[in-house]
């Protein structure tokens, strides 16, 4: 059996290995953290759209993002219903409002959704059922993922929104993350009262659902054709894509997360290289001895790279576990949707392995130049 040299090298000086692995672990953790921020910023931007059940959305021409959309004429929704292939179109109202914390007497930002009681809006059927309860005057559904600054509230209690008392008839889990402190859902009628709007003439969104089997591209084209140019028609993937890109590429906070991610990558790579090269430099004599003994260069490189990989896996595993904790901490403190997903875990793993292998190759470059005779 061949001697597992890379492994023996790793475990020979345990303390030293522990420091190196610790360093790698933190470099990887840094990458996880920034990647988590960026991923959460993306997810956060499209959170509401992922819960709404629609194939296409009618939005205003000047539409920027969920919380910055202008209104569309109610007739656009009615007009869209007549397009072949369209099963139903629901109007949706959305505007920023104030939720009063009744204990601390402070007002918190709150996005208020205005819905037609009985309308089919959400992917979640239980939630669609709750929406029917909104037909009662001055009633609301509260967001269970609202920030703690909303103060205590319960189903059956009262909420104060825009200084009006509303009966809380149920709840749902949405969470607005970076966009606002929380949200609430009310009926069209309650919405109009909350904002003092005399009559329902404008919606913010029109949710289009297609008949089964309809060709989405063809229907979208037909909708664009038949509706006036003051609105845009976006399919669900288009809308989610646009929303995430707007937040990450245009809003300052998204850009900051992006820069943070880049810097974390560079720093992580440099740290890994630093650790591995000093590790390999320490064994230069041994590698040179192997060379003098007649081992091929390929074998020596193999040992170095394998050691790099062992280090990176030993550093990756604890940092993966640590980042689960870090994400949980972040979610608890900020209601920011930072979740670990398989893609991110694999992506960071691939990156770590790649960086370690490259660092090992660079560090081993010295061996090529080193003459065994010079070393002693």
């Amino acid at each position, binding site marked *: 059996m061949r001697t597992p040299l890379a492994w023996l090298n790793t475990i020979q000086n345990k303390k030293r290995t522990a420091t190196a692995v610790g360093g790698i672990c933190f470099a990887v953790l840094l990458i996880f953290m920034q990647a988590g921020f960026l991923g959460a910023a993306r997810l956060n931007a499209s959170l509401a759209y992922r819960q709404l059940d629609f194939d296409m959305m009618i939005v205003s021409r000047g539409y920027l993002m969920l919380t910055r959309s202008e209104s569309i004429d109610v007739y656009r929704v009615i007009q869209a219903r007549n397009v072949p292939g369209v099963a139903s179109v629901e109007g949706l109202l959305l505007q920023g409002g104030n939720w009063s914390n009744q204990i601390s007497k402070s007002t918190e930002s709150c996005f208020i959704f205005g819905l037609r009681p009985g309308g089919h809006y959400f992917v979640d059927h239980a939630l669609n059922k709750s929406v029917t309860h909104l037909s009662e005057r001055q009633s609301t559904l509260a967001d269970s993922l609202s920030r703690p600054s909303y103060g205590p509230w319960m189903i059956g209690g009262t909420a104060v929104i825009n200084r009006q008392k509303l009966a809380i008839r149920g709840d749902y889990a949405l969470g607005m993350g970076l966009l606002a402190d929380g949200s609430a859902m009310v009926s069209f009628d309650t919405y109009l009262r909350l904002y003092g709007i005399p009559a329902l003439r404008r919606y913010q969104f029109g949710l289009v659902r297609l008949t089964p089997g309809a060709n989405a591209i063809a229907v979208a084209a037909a909708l664009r054709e038949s509706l006036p140019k003051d609105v845009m028609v976006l399919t669900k993937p288009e809308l989610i894509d646009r929303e995430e890109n707007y937040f990450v590429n245009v809003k300052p906070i998204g850009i900051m997360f992006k820069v943070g991610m880049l810097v974390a990558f560079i720093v992580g790579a440099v740290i890994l290289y630093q650790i591995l090269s000093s590790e390999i430099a320490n064994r230069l004599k041994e590698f040179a001895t192997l060379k003098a003994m007649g081992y091929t260069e390929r074998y020596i490189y193999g040992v170095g790279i394998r050691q790099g990989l062992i280090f990176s896996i030993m550093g990756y595993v604890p940092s993966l576990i640590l980042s689960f904790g870090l994400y949980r901490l972040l979610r608890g403190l*900020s209601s920011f949707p930072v979740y670990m997903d398989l893609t991110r875990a694999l992506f960071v793993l691939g990156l770590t392995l790649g960086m370690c292998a490259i660092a090992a190759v660079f560090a081993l470059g010295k061996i090529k130049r080193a003459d065994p005779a010079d070393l002693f």
Partner: protein
Amino acid sequence: MLIDKPGRLVLSILAVAFSVVIMFMELGFFNGCNNSSANLPPHFDCDLILSHIEKNHLKTGEEFPLDWVFLARDVEGVAASVALYSGADYWWNPQDSSRNRVFALGVDLEDPMFETDLIAAHRKALLEPGSVLYDRLSRHELGRVETGTVSTLGRIQTKVVGLFSLGPNFTYEGHLLMSADTFLLMQDQSRNVVDLGLIRVKPGADLKEVRKRLLAKLPPIALLLTPDEINAREINVTTRRSPAGVVFGIGLLVGFSIGIIICYQILFNEVNDHLPQFATLKAMGHPPRFISGIVLYEALLMALAGFIPGLLAGAGLYILIEHFTQIRMFLTPGRVLLIFCLTSGMCLIAGHLALKKVHSTDPADLF
């Protein structure tokens, strides 16, 4: 001893420099987030700011009736009391007519108590309904705007009659200043609904006494704060309550701990490699203090050598982020000093930890 292996030294310094960059970056994000959301208070020229008690941030929250502003005028020791109207609306980009949210302030032209000199300089132009002052540091999404640009704001046509400097924040892409009349026209708001009251105290009057008298006269739902107190509260609201503050705060902490660990890693290797030399020194009869001195001196040198490129790279990074976001990232001497202290602190801690090994070795064991 440091320059013994130049290649290695460069790597060590690079690693210290990078941990400095991480700290600068996280601190910059954290402060950029705080400063940009508390960008208004430094521009107030008043002694007290009156608001509704439920208004917990300058840019959102409850309004109050104009009566309060008049009530305050009758209180002894108050020199002047004026209303300030504020709110967000859509700004049409004059080039491509895309729309973005801006924050607008409507001031009393006679006695603004907000950017007084600036308003005084443009007073005549601002008297014209629809004329506004534009923040030249606004985000590029708002378009190229100069004095004379005509564009739509909310429901009215506006003309830019001058520029000022404030800077955007995470919520609003830019800021506009205008007369109270223009503001009310734009928002279709009643003059009776006021966002903030600005109060100036008579010279020589005791601020605390005046505040007490004011609170006695005003309804219990009134809140009086000085601009400094408002500033502290704005930062508190962002750091504690908004997820951005929390996220960047945690980033800052993780950045610091990573910096310490990296420095320790480097110094430990450094000391470990020179263990025979240290042991020799010990065997030669040098006291442990001498050896500690060498290692700590080495640690400090490394901190300094790593800090300078780290500072330069950090400054470059700030410029880059400012360019992309137009969020102002201030590199104040205080913050530079803070990071420097942290860098040398962590190098010293790391050096100290690494020293333990030196002291525990017996020279006889090494050879």
